[in-house]
């Protein structure tokens, strides 16, 4: 029997007054919106127009809303029954961008559905292969996911789209000011204002972009002309394609997402139970299943893959409101926003320097999260070598991209992604060094 911590005002199964429920739900959707920049960047980079960007953002919001509701449920093995909202997953971004770049949105959708199915399968066997992912490997995976966002964030920050292009001073100025606002709000030691650092930064960035002319009349015209309510759709939204060469990358990022969700669900259990000793396998399995189904839904609908949000779980702990009813409320509101082209359109015209600033802001948290997971695992020489070697060779893919060009084609999916190579090496080294250590100890 769980013992409710003293700081929790509204526990998992508690009912809230309607007004409080609405306000707490709105608070969560602000945080859930913080990564909606990712589908905007993705569709814009493959040459998508305003309507397509707006639709992909709206469909991503709907999928995240569905995922948040599924996670709060406990029905036939689906859902953990916790407030653990979904947002557009940063760890999926690199893989989705590569798929969209190579084969357009149909390939991204097909590969996203595949990633979701992988997570559903993982949910069924998670308890059997959990030994492959000790905390230090999970931390490395989170770190490499963050590393994958650096090039995108920094290039947007400087206003540079292509190699050898000139830095845009105005973009750089707006990006610096936007990031400064987010950091200034984020470093406040007290007060609820710091919960809204990303949102305040976004608003400041939009205002600065309007004043500097980066955000022009043409873009606002799209918002004004957009209907208040409409069904999100784009041409070919139900077309799907698949490429085997991309499967390893999507398997890895899917497992990354599953591992992250695993950690978030453990966190949910901990903050709701002062006597927590070990995880509830049925709850974890249901949570992973809900997350996998949400990824499948993202792919089927035409949105970008989603993931559970550690920031929202932390918010529920900080506010003392962990009721799963907030999950239902936030999920419902997010779906509702998806049907408002005016509101999703505002996110679709996000200026380049604002994207850069917010990506750097989000990446800071991910890097710190990855490092802290690694460091918390009480490093010994075995872990140092398995993580260190994996990190070095993983980063070498980005530092020396042509180094692995002549490797056999069958191995290329592993050696063309820093995330995949680092993960594969970390698992192999961790297992082989563990085996060697055990053998040595017996002798």
């Amino acid at each position, binding site marked *: 029997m769980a013992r409710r911590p003293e700081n929790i005002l509204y526990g998992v199964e508690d009912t809230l007054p309607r007004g409080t429920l609405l306000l707490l739900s709105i608070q969560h959707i602000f945080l859930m919106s913080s990564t909606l920049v990712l589908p905007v960047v993705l569709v814009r980079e493959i040459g998508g127009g305003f309507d397509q960007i707006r639709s992909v953002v709206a469909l991503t919001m709907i999928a995240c809303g569905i995922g948040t509701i599924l996670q709060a449920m406990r029905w036939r093995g689906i859902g953990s029954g916790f407030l653990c909202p979904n947002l557009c997953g940063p760890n999926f971004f*690199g893989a989705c961008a590569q798929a969209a770049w190579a084969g357009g949105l149909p390939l991204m959708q097909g590969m996203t559905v595949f990633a979701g199915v992988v997570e559903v399968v993982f949910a069924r066997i998670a308890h059997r292969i959990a030994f492959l992912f000790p905390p230090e490997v999970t931390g490395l995976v989170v770190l490499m996911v963050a590393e*994958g966002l650096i090039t995108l964030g920094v*290039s947007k920050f400087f206003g540079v*789209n*292509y190699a050898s292009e000139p830095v845009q001073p105005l973009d750089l100025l707006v990006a610096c000011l936007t990031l400064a606002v987010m950091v200034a709000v984020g470093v406040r030691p007290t007060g609820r204002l710091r919960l809204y650092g990303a949102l305040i930064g976004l608003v400041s960035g939009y*205002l600065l972009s309007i004043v*500097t*002319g980066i955000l022009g009349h043409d873009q606002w015209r799209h918002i004004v002309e957009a209907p208040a309510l409409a069904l999100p759709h784009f041409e070919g939204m139900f077309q799907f394609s698949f490429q085997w060469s991309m499967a390893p990358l999507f398997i890895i990022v899917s497992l990354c997402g599953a591992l992250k969700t695993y950690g978030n669900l453990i966190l949910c259990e901990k903050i709701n139970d002062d006597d927590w000793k070990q995880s509830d396998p049925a709850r974890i399995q249901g949570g992973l299943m809900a997350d996998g189904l949400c990824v499948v839904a993202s792919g089927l609908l035409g949105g970008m893959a989603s993931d559970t949000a550690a920031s929202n779980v932390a918010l529920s702990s900080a506010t003392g409101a962990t009721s799963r009813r907030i999950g239902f409320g936030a999920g419902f509101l997010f779906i509702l926003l998806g049907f408002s082209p005016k509101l999703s359109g505002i996110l679709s015209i996000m200026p380049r320097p604002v994207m850069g600033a917010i990506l750097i802001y989000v990446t800071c948290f991910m890097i710190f999260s990855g490092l802290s997971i690694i460091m918390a695992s009480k490093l010994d020489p075995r872990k140092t070598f398995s993580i260190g070697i994996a990190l070095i060779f993983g980063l070498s893919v980005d530092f020396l991209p042509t180094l692995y060009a*002549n490797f056999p084609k069958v191995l290329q999916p592993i050696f063309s992604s820093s995330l995949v190579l680092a993960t594969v090496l970390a698992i192999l080294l961790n297992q082989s060094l563990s085996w060697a250590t055990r053998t040595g100890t017996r002798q």
Partner: protein
Amino acid sequence: MKILFSKWTVGLLLASGLLLLLGQLRPKETSSDIGDYEYESTRQLVTFVDKASAKVHREGTNAFADFRKTGGDWFKPDAALYLFVYDTNGLCVFHPVEPGLQGRNILDLQDIDGRHEIRGIVGVKSSGWVHFRWMPPGGIFPLWKSCYVERTRGPDGRTYLVGAGLYNMKPERVFVRDAVDHAVALIQRDGDKAYDQLRDSSNGLTFRDNYIFVMTPEGTALVDPAFPNSRLRNLTNIRDVDGRLVVQEILQRLQRQTDAWVMFMWPMPGDVHPSKRIVYARKVQLGGSTVIVGSDYPAPTPIWMKM
């Protein structure tokens, strides 16, 4: 009084001042439509020539004094960026890097491959691009240079061609579309006699590693860049590195429309990694038959994309 000096008021005033300052930094509008260009360096070059052309239109040859000032807005030797001006007969009116050319008619000047670049410049109707290989200032070997040229009339009533170029520019979608449109115009004017001109790499339509191809709707090559002397190769079974039947996709698309942009993956010259390339193809009626004219270019790859 206290509220006037509160930190919120001071913050608000500072923010307002900053916003006003930023408003002054807003980029000036240009009359050219630069939205078609993908690269910022291309947009900057077009804007540069556009402003220079407007200056020549207003001031005529008096503008050249400003164009000649080293390190000024119009002449940046470090970036190999300078303006040149020709008249419609190929007479060099202004050239800050090689002043010896000024006053000479160099209409028949050719680059290392035999391209008549001055004829290309003089042939620009209102504005356009000319590509050739040219020596950078202080250089030893010629490099690919792409020049944007605008035709303008000075206050003296003379017509000038004002241009500037950049070395090793990245190919733009506009370049390949212009090349195919030119090739189509040639075929429509000269019929299949134009094919010999299209096979000649000095025709002015070939830029870096892109070539013009012509084929029948059945996929039989009429102008085949890989085999200039062959006319019978069937291209329908050509696959890219991912196994995509590129020519078949072009032919299928052109059954429904008059032009098509089709993506495929192929390594760039000197690279082993496949890159995304885009082929542009147009369907042309030639007498009673149909031919397909096209060319390709490397798709712009974002700096952050790991491919």
